[in-house]
């Protein structure tokens, strides 16, 4: 049956998208391109969601972006980055991507290097784990032949599946740690499809970064959306999704206005979205709230990291052979984490970032951070910043903090509280709900989920998610 199209008294849209993060913007571009009357509603004043940027004391910081995963060189086809560019009709050059220099996974007594050529990682695994050579080859074969993006894959434990092939628990943990850090909403494990998505995006594909950081990507997406006639309202959150039986009737906004829409795509999270629905109790989905949250500290330096002898792009580390990726008992668990040096990309002649950046991420406990009174909150931020900085310097081979301290211009720190504030994710959950809705459906007709809780993660993944959901639920069914 033909649904109403076009705008009725200025307040009706064919599709409303909740959230101007990577997935919402990509979905919006698809719909606007095909002439749909589409509106993006965003609670904050800045677009980008988890992957955004902010200015503080005249300095621009990236949130999120360490490394854009899924990087492939021009000419490599059939991978997520290429799909995203095609689907959004964007030129690859517009993202201005530069490749990483090289990264490492560091465990007690053993490390594995990798870069954007898979051969390096492969040879490193064979060097460090010669007894696993054949098994590793088998795992690679399984990963290559697996269709990780099928929307109807059953959820299974990656740990269990990998252990059927790889016997050395240390190698299993060394492979899993970076993939969990860059995309697992589950503690100490991940869904096998998600594992394959992440493995391909880090090791088969690779890391890149726009010279200007994430704002380059956001700028390109916003421009594309605008030139296609897409509409967007910032500082305009959705308070309630008003239902009529099991169908969306209208959206009530934070400012009290209402808007009607034929269909709604939400990037606000699965549980978060269901709780917005007028007839859903506030306890909906209590068993599907993510527990993985983090803190990140950024140290700004007046020198390039390479001047300190730090050449890595990203370091994934664990102090223990059995790596811990779970909600910590204390405020922060410094035993594992990620160190990122955004200066260490191959930006090319004459392109160096104005300042040096050292970013460190470790898992953090949302409840603990939110229970702190303001004064203690500020003090704890400082305290943990120092702990993580010491840790990173040690990993990077710098003996004393005195070598670095005089070069520190400023620092900035975000905590699980910040994540909740800027993304609305319950419990500051970094990667959303542990159990995803891969086909984007909800119990409510005409209400769909895209982004983090659909299950494609990362910058490229989130864009692909928005595109896939727009295709599947809005563009395709009209035939």
């Amino acid at each position, binding site marked *: 049956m033909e649904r109403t199209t076009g705008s009725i008294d200025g307040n009706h849209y064919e599709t409303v998208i909740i959230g101007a993060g990577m997935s919402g913007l990509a979905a919006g571009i698809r719909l606007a391109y*095909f*002439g749909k009357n589409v509106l993006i509603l965003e609670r904050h004043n800045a677009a980008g969601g988890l992957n955004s940027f902010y200015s503080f004391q005249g300095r621009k910081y990236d949130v999120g972006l360490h490394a854009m995963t899924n990087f492939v060189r*021009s*000419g490599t*086809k*059939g991978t997520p980055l*290429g*799909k995203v560019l*095609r*689907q959004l*009709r964007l*030129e*690859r050059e517009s993202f201005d991507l530069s490749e990483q220099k090289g990264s490492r996974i560091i465990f007690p007594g053993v490390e594995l290097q990798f870069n954007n050529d898979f051969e390096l990682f492969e040879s490193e695994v064979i060097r460090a784990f010669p007894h696993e050579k054949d098994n590793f080859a088998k795992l690679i074969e399984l990963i290559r032949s697996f269709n990780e993006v099928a929307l109807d894959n059953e959820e299974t434990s990656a740990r269990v599946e990998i252990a059927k092939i790889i016997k050395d628990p240390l190698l299993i943990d060394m492979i899993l740690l970076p993939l969990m850090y860059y995309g697992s909403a589950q503690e100490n494990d991940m869904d096998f499809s998600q594992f394959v998505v992440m493995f391909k995006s880090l090791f088969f594909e690779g890391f890149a970064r726009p010279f200007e950081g994430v704002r380059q990507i956001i700028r390109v997406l916003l421009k594309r959306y605008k030139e296609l006639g897409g509409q967007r309202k910032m500082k305009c959150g959705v308070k309630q999704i008003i239902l009529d039986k099991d169908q969306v009737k209208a959206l009530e906004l934070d400012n009290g206005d209402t808007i009607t829409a034929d269909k709604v795509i939400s990037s606000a999270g699965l549980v978060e979205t269901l709780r917005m629905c007028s007839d859903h109790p506030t306890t909906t989905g209590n068993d599907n709230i993510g527990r993985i949250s983090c803190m990140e500290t950024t140290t700004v330096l007046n020198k390039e990291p390479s001047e300190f002898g730090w050449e890595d792009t990203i370091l994934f580390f664990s102090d223990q052979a059995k790596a811990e990726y779970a909600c910590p008992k204390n405020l922060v668990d410094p035993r594992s984490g990620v160190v990122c040096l955004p200066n260490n990309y191959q930006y090319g002649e004459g392109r160096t970032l104005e300042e040096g950046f050292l970013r460190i991420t470790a898992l953090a406990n949302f409840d603990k951070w939110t229970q702190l009174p303001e004064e203690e909150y500020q003090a704890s931020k400082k305290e943990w910043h120092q702990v993580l900085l010491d840790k990173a310097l040690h990993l990077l081979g710098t003996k004393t903090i005195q070598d670095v301290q005089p070069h520190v211009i400023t620092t900035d720190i975000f905590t699980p509280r910040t994540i909740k504030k800027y993304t609305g994710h319950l419990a500051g959950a970094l990667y959303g709900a542990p159990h995803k809705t891969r086909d984007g459906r909800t119990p409510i007709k005409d209400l769909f989920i895209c982004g983090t809780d659909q299950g494609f993660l990362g910058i490229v993944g989130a864009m692909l998610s928005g*595109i*896939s959901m727009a*295709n599947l639920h809005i*563009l*395709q069914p009209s*035939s």
Partner: protein
Amino acid sequence: MTKEDVKKIVLNIIGEIAPDEDLTQVKSGLRLRDQLELDSMDFLDIVMELRKKYGIEVPEDDYSRLESLDSCGEYLHPKFMQKGVALA
């Protein structure tokens, strides 16, 4: 408008969707999928562009009729004629 014109239209659409593909060697009797890196998302886009640009509808059950340029010509030509699409 001839079937050849229809094939050209389809090829132009593919050029827009997948600017990174070399279309100069495409053989019209062979499956597009076997010659180019096109996935189901790209085929959906061919359908979407036909609708957007020419108002031509291809129901999902008929997607397989778009597998080669020749079959596109056969299948789409009557639709173009019916629409009376004039070539610029």
